[in-house]
């Protein structure tokens, strides 16, 4: 099987930012906690490869740690969505048409009525802002997404004869869901996972831009954009780097998702939109 070109480009971009985030755990070119007003707004080149911001902090270092924040938030949020959403969706499909299915799906619809931002607002209002809030808000929003995908794909599998055969063998619905359904929808979940990952990056950027995400002094791409906004019209370059990081990461993840979809099963094009 040929690896689709999107997959290669996507994996390369994603891998690049993932590597930057990992490296930032033990090495950054400069410290980002110290403020150096004298060295503020240094142009790219020299000691600061990408220059410094309005407080004199090294942009490259900020971006590396920002990658860590963004990726961690989005990844954990996808984890929450899969861990809670997939079992719910499988359970709903296994008990199709019963009150349990109805309650689960109506619950799903209810969460859909709360955009991530609104959940973040609610949590922040009672618990104060933090990166954890962003994780929770995006993660909660991911739950119904994965539940729906899992339920939809599982429903079409439940009509297959091999499921009937398993039931004739006396297997329980939970066992069938784990043994027969889950492995057959895993491809779909991986593809949806990359899509939610990329949406998570964007959502995290939006939340930290309005101050509902990671708090100072932790650098994050969204807040770097917010901080550069007042200087944007005199110094637009400052906003280009974080924006570029967001765009390339999201682009990479989306390309990877498309590529995976083509690689794993061309029929998935229909199931995921």
């Amino acid at each position, binding site marked *: 099987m040929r690896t689709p070109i999107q997959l290669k480009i996507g994996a390369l971009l994603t891998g690049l930012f993932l590597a930057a985030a990992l490296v930032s755990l033990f090495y950054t070119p400069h410290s980002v906690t110290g403020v150096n007003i004298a060295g503020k707004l240094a142009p790219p080149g020299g000691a600061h490869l990408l220059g410094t911001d309005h407080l004199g902090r090294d942009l490259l270092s900020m971006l590396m740690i920002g990658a860590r924040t963004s990726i961690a938030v989005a990844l954990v949020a996808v984890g929450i969505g899969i861990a809670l959403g997939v079992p719910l969706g499988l359970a709903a499909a296994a008990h199709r048409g019963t009150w349990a299915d109805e309650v689960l799906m109506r619950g799903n619809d209810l969460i859909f009525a709360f955009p991530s931002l609104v959940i973040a607002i609610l949590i922040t209002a009672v618990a104060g802002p933090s990166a954890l809030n962003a994780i929770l808000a995006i993660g909660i929003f991911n739950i119904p997404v994965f539940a729906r995908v899992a339920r939809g794909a599982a429903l079409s599998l439940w009509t297959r004869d*091999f499921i009937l055969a398993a039931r004739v063998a*006396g297997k329980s619905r939970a066992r069938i869901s784990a043994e027969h359904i889950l492995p057959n929808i895993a491809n779909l979940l991986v593809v949806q996972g990359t899509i939610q990952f990329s949406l998570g990056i964007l959502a995290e950027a939006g939340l930290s831009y309005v101050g509902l995400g990671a708090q100072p002094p932790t650098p994050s791409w969204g807040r770097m954009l917010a901080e550069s906004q007042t200087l944007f019209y005199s110094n637009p370059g400052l906003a280009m780097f974080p924006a570029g990081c967001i765009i390339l990461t999201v682009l990479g993840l989306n390309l990877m998702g498309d590529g995976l979809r083509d690689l794993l099963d061309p029929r998935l094009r229909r199931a995921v939109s």
Partner: protein
Amino acid sequence: MIEISNLSLTIGTHPILRDVSLSLEPAQITGLVGESGSGKSMTALSIMGLLPRAARTTGSITFDGQDLRQTPERRMCAIRGNDIGMIFQEPMTALNPVQTIGAQVAETLRIHGVASRAKAQEIAAQTLARVGLPPEKVPPDRYPHQLSGGQRQRVCIAMAVALRPRVLIADEPTTALDVTTQAQILTLLQDLVQQDGMALLLITHDLAVVSQLADRIAVMQNGQLLESGPARSTLTAPQHAYTGALLAAAAHSPRRAAPPKGRPLLRVQNATRIYPTARETPFSPPGELRAVDRVSFDIKRGESLGLVGESGCGKSTLTRAILGLDALQEGAITLAEAPVTPDMPAETRQKMQVVFQDPYSSFNPRHRVSRILREPFHLSGIPKDLPDRIAKALTDTGLSPEDAHKYPHEFSGGQRQRIALARALIAQPDLIVLDEAVSALDVQVRAQILDLLADLQARYALTYLFISHDLTVVRAVTDRTMVMQAGKIVETGPTEDIFRTPQHPYTRALLAAAPRLETI
């Protein structure tokens, strides 16, 4: 009228058709038969000029002196629907779900610019009445989902014949329909051919259908046209060995032992299963559908019992209850005196196995055959001699022990039904429920599987419940037959008696509607 000569077709590097030559004559029905993948449909789509983009053709398709292969797309649009009409196999999806049937028939007239909007609607209504959908019974402002499968196929026919084309191509037009509906649609097609003097190309896998309708028969295999000629001579004295083999396979009846006189193995008493139906208003009580209505019967040990009936008669619901998947509201089922319920013990469950219709959805695509064959031991625990048992079950069903390491997609449809049989056999059951188990198979493969079933029954004293809509097959392989209609068993008796002297009017209607292969 249409003359296909030396038509070859390739898609990419795959040859699909090779040197196909065939002619269609006015007021004649040409039956094009062959097994799946033989190139029947591609021949039809070549005439219509609706082949996939990647297709490349050589040869010629002449219609009224013009070669349709060379005809530009604009001109083809004017020919399609006007001079040549076509209907397809699947009436459930062939109509646009969001347009009324009247509008869809009228569109044929409008698109060819032959009638004003009002006039087109009028002609559409007349055409619908002509194909058996009179406005007082089925108004043209209905949507497709409000119609039955047979009615939808009538709408498709109305769209195709609204402009009285000179050629009509029908690709498996009745394959998705019940036998009584099939008979009505075939009669309708026959009438239209006579009234309009159309040439009809009837594509089907069912030799019995062609034998009853066609004036001429053409036989295809692997993209080649093996023979074509007058129907009678092709059926009685086929030129090609393959045609003879097809005919023999269609009429095949495996050798079976005399019916046993043992004790009942499965007893169904007063079985009733009721489904709630949609509420009329949010506050009215739900209605009820008695899917299985006080059904009682026995199957003796070693017997083959046939269950026939049309879709929606309650066969599937009854089967699910017998397999212990759904509970009954009333009545009881016992297998060797042990009650059959959704939570019956492992011993009872293992005594009963099942083979389904669709060989492509019967197995988890991610499991190897060895794992598939292990599944029946889920409740009882894996026996120590499992590898031996797997080897034996595979050998018994005509496969080889090495097949245990393969995945289902590595097998053909017929081989997959053998795997399904192996899965049923491995737990050494008493009863095997064969739920349309040979219905999806090509006629030659079907004959082999029927032989295998008869052989296994004799060897292991198996009892079969043989559920099918195909009356010919039921007649060939069962000792007794039950006829089911609207949730009730309307007639039961020895199979030959049922087929020779049916008592119930419904049984008679079914038998009258079933096409018979008339060879000699």
